[in-house]
């Protein structure tokens, strides 16, 4: 178990020590600030308040979970798997006294840590950004709801990471895998829009799950349904992703 922890720490470091990750984290910090300035312009210039201060952090979260975070997560997932094969460092990783299952789990744990750090940063920066905004009535209640929403958002993002890991197994370098991931992501979104009847089955349609958590008790049934979808897809993609990783000849 100790070696798994060490391996997970190691993989997490691999994500965070990349210059690319740092740049992305800075972008992640800037977007809530820019968002607050933009919303502030609407409030002062036009006199309308489509997003009040107390709703701001949940609104910003929606912007991230719908496009930016899946992209960042996909990049990290692809780097950890296909990228490692591309730059041949996978052989060194596999020489460590850890089973392939251990390495696979460590990489998934590292991705989960990356998601949590991202969401944490967005929550903190967006909470501070609300000082620029009007409509602070119910700010504490709004923050409580926000905290709930941010925690709920971890799961659908993790599912996207797991699915990206599965797809990354099919590629030998990260750029090819990333292009395909982006195409699949948009493809699934278009299918969900054109055929809303089957959108439930699309793994990209759970990115707004966190909103249900802010909508009161009436949504419990729907929350449970989506949770079951996320859980079953996660199991399928984890198992098949691991199978491919295990069988991979290097």
């Amino acid at each position, binding site marked *: 178990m100790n070696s798994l922890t060490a391996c997970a720490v190691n993989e997490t470091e691999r994500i965070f020590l990349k210059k690319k990750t740092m740049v992305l984290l800075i972008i992640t910090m800037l977007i809530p600030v820019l968002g607050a300035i933009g919303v502030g312009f609407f409030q002062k210039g036009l*006199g*309308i308040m489509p997003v009040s201060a107390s709703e701001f952090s949940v609104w910003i979260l929606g912007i991230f979970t719908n496009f930016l975070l899946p992209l960042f997560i996909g990049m990290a997932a692809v780097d950890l798997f296909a990228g490692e094969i591309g730059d041949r460092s996978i052989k060194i990783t596999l020489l460590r006294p850890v089973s392939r299952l251990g390495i696979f789990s460590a990489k998934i744990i590292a991705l989960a840590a990356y998601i949590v750090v991202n969401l944490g940063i967005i929550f903190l920066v967006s909470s501070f950004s609300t000082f620029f905004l009007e409509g602070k009535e119910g700010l504490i209640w709004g923050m409580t709801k926000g905290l709930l929403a941010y925690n709920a958002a971890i799961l659908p993002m993790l599912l996207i990471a797991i699915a990206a890991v599965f797809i990354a197994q099919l590629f030998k370098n990260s750029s090819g895998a990333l292009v395909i991931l982006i195409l699949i992501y948009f493809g699934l979104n278009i299918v969900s829009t054109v055929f809303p009847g089957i959108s439930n089955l699309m793994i990209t349609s759970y990115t707004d799950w966190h909103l249900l958590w802010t909508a009161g008790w009436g949504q419990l049934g729907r929350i449970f349904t989506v949770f079951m979808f996320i859980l079953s897809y996660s199991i*399928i993609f984890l198992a098949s992703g691991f199978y491919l990783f295990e069988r991979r000849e290097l």
Partner: protein
Amino acid sequence: MNKKILLTGVSIAAGCAMLFTTAFASMTGNTGYEIYKEAVKNTVKAKSFTADVRMTFKDNGKVMAEMDSTMKQSHEERAMSHITNAKVQDKEVKMETYANEDNVVLKKGSSDEYYLIKNDKKDFGRHDRKLNCAEDPEMSKAGEVVLDALVGDLKNYVSASGNSEGGSDVTIQLEGNQIPAVVNALASLGAKGAAKDGNRPHAHGPAPFDENFDLQPPKLVDDIKITKVDVKAKINKDKTIESQIITAVLTGKDAEGKSHQIEFSADMKLKNVNSTTVDKVDLTGKQVKELKPEDIKGEHSR
């Protein structure tokens, strides 16, 4: 090695089984959105109906305007009649409207004078054909696809539960983050524009009645926002809407910085579906003044 393959195989099988169960359960359960949509479609298709509608307009809890009307409408007869009692800032006014294919008759409750608008262009008939077009299955199906796509994730907020009479109660509750920011921004801008235009936010009366509608809505300039949209509908066992209450709350500040909470609600009860006869008016021997349709159009587009 074989053990690992077995484990992966079992996990994938279990995952698939869970997925199918969840997918099946979520597909067969008729969602609130589908129930509501079907009821709206059935209600629109009704050949005739009587609707009692009560609309109220409140500012910070104080009633600014109230309107009670009985609307009878029949697609078969191509006619409708409205009798409306409105109370706008303590001023009461009664209006009667009778319309059919050939003309529209208006009457202000207090006077005996009738206003007649001859409909040379058969406007009412044309409007009716539009309704027939909505009944064209191909058109309505295409419309539905577009509607479903526009509604998107909002349909998750429509919930339905069966009631004791064999129908269902549908509730839609949108608050705060549930209202998409773009929709909220457009609606808030619209509300701001309407308030700026002057005294007639939504209660446009036909020309002769205009002077009675000097409803003075608070002029909001800052922090305008739709905070809540609520729909409660009761659907009967014939899958048509029996009653429906829509409430929308708008908040904002006026030029002096005073906060306003404007609540608009419409309470509608439908009855005599498919068995309504529209009230008619006999103009013989009555005082009648003829109005040109252009006069009214001019008033509206100002």
